């Protein structure tokens, strides 16, 4: 290690602390607002320390809802939490299972069309939902899947990133493992379940974090594919509640839902921080 002067070390910590404060500031302000009464938020300036309405506001946010479009009562956020969870878990599980199966086929079998199939999947990298949004909407609509969980999840259920990552990982598994399984008379599916899946815990965990965050944070597709309130995710609910003049919005409730909307993903990313950081920086390169 290089010994740097104390001045340099103080400089480093000072600027890192400033950086962290800038990162945390919007979250802190939102949290404070979620613990105030609505009139307090309208004070100039808004109080800078949390108020005493934490329980009241979060109770109202979860079970009652704030004012929505045109002053109508919006639904409680509990329904939105459930929908966000269904969307996030649905996308994560389907992406991982589908990608595991196909990369298993690509790496451990030889069959005509293997090459084309792999490239077909890679091409999807160039077709994010934003690019194919109108035709996808028309397709899902003609299948009668608007306002359904299947319609929300299916167009987002494939992941080139996941397929690519599993393929790379499977390639590093020594041939001896397959050899040994074959000698023991294990069928391909037995090998898949009892050897391959347990060995792939690390990439699976990384992908669970990345894809859960992706699914939970989806916005454009749910905005278009659902119109009924009972399918609102947290993101859709938030934006619908704010589709009003900003001096009329129920800011204390909106801010409580904002906090509710970011806590699950922050907790997941931070609790699996080491694995996630390593997986992200190694997989995307």
């Amino acid at each position, binding site marked *: 290690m290089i010994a740097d002067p104390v001045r340099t070390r103080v400089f480093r910590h000072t600027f890192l602390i400033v950086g962290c404060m800038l990162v945390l500031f919007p979250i802190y302000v939102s949290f404070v607002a979620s613990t105030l009464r609505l009139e307090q938020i309208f004070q100039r300036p808004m109080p800078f320390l949390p108020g005493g309405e934490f329980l009241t506001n979060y109770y109202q946010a979860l079970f009652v809802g704030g004012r929505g479009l045109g002053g109508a009562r919006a639904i409680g956020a509990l329904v939105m939490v459930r929908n966000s969870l269904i969307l996030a878990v649905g996308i994560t599980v389907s992406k991982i299972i589908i990608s595991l*199966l196909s990369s298993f086929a690509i790496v451990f*079998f030889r069959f005509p*069309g293997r090459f084309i199939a792999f490239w077909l*999947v890679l091409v999807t990298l160039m077709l994010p939902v934003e690019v194919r949004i109108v035709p996808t909407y028309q397709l899902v609509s003609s299948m009668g899947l608007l306002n359904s969980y299947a319609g929300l999840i299916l167009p987002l259920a*494939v992941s080139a990133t996941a397929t690519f990552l599993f393929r790379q990982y499977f390639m590093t598994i020594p041939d001896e493992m*397959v050899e040994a399984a074959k000698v023991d008379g294990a069928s391909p599916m037995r090998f898949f379940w009892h050897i391959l899946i347990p060995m792939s815990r690390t990439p699976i965990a990384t992908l669970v974090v990345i894809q859960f965050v992706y699914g939970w944070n989806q916005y454009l597709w749910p905005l278009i594919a659902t119109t009924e309130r009972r399918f609102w995710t947290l993101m859709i609910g938030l934006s619908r509640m704010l589709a009003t003049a900003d001096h009329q919005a129920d800011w204390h409730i909106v801010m409580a839902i904002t906090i509710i909307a970011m806590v699950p993903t922050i907790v997941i990313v931070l609790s699996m921080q080491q694995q996630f950081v390593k997986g992200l920086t190694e997989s995307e390169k």
Partner: protein
Amino acid sequence: MVGKRVIFKNRRLPYLLISPEVILVLIFFIFPAAQALIQSLFREDAFGITRTFVGLANFRRALSEPLYVRAIGTTIKFAIAVALSTMGVALFLSSLANAIGRKALPYQTIIIAPYAVAPLVAGVMWFFMFSPAVGLFTYLLRFVGIQWNHTIIPAHAFLLVVVAASWQRMSYNFLFYLAGMQSIPDSLVESAAIDGATPMKRFWFITFPLLSPTSFFLLIMNFIYTFFETFPIIHQLTQGGPSNATATMVYRIYRDGFRGLDFGGSAAQSVVLMAFVVTVVALQFRYVERKVVY
């Protein structure tokens, strides 16, 4: 494509295994993309009853429309602004974090939190802080003589969208720069230190040049991010306004397609955007192949 030497022999099983992915890709990716290509050559009435072949007219119409050309410009300006600001800040913070070694973990924990925050949520929080009616910053800025109103002043709107997107995106850049710096051998930096190079010099003449592959990768990933993932931020903060100052290409595809019900025009724009992505991804693949290994 290289593969394993030891494989399973089975005629039908691999097709069965790969079919869910291939079928979903064909239905939800290839078919809609082909549809977009076809639609972009037709003009449909708002009810989708009649369809006339118009050739490249939709493209000509889009590209000759000053507002669409402006949306391309806005998208590029936006992408450059977000890339430069996030990479600059991330480079600075990650070099500090790298220098203090293991003690940087608490800082890293805080700095990566916005990665988990949805772009829409970022939009809501910045909207709240800069709201003309209740915003804390709107109030504070008045003391320095700035009447902040992003609903009226285009420059304010653009700045706000850039700040909100950069706040959310910085963590991603930070992680990659930190990982890049950690992979640089200590011996290189240490030998420079022995030669008497200051921390500043060590950074500019050794660390930064060695990070150029990371920088290029991040530049491209940040472009892709601003192209696609900033839609919620724009939709929440400015709705593309005022006077189209923040209407990006994806925002226009949404507005023309779902608000204006101009599917042909919207599809033509999708095709233009696809061409953009293909170019960027091709660049990325070229770069990956030539990746410099130290």
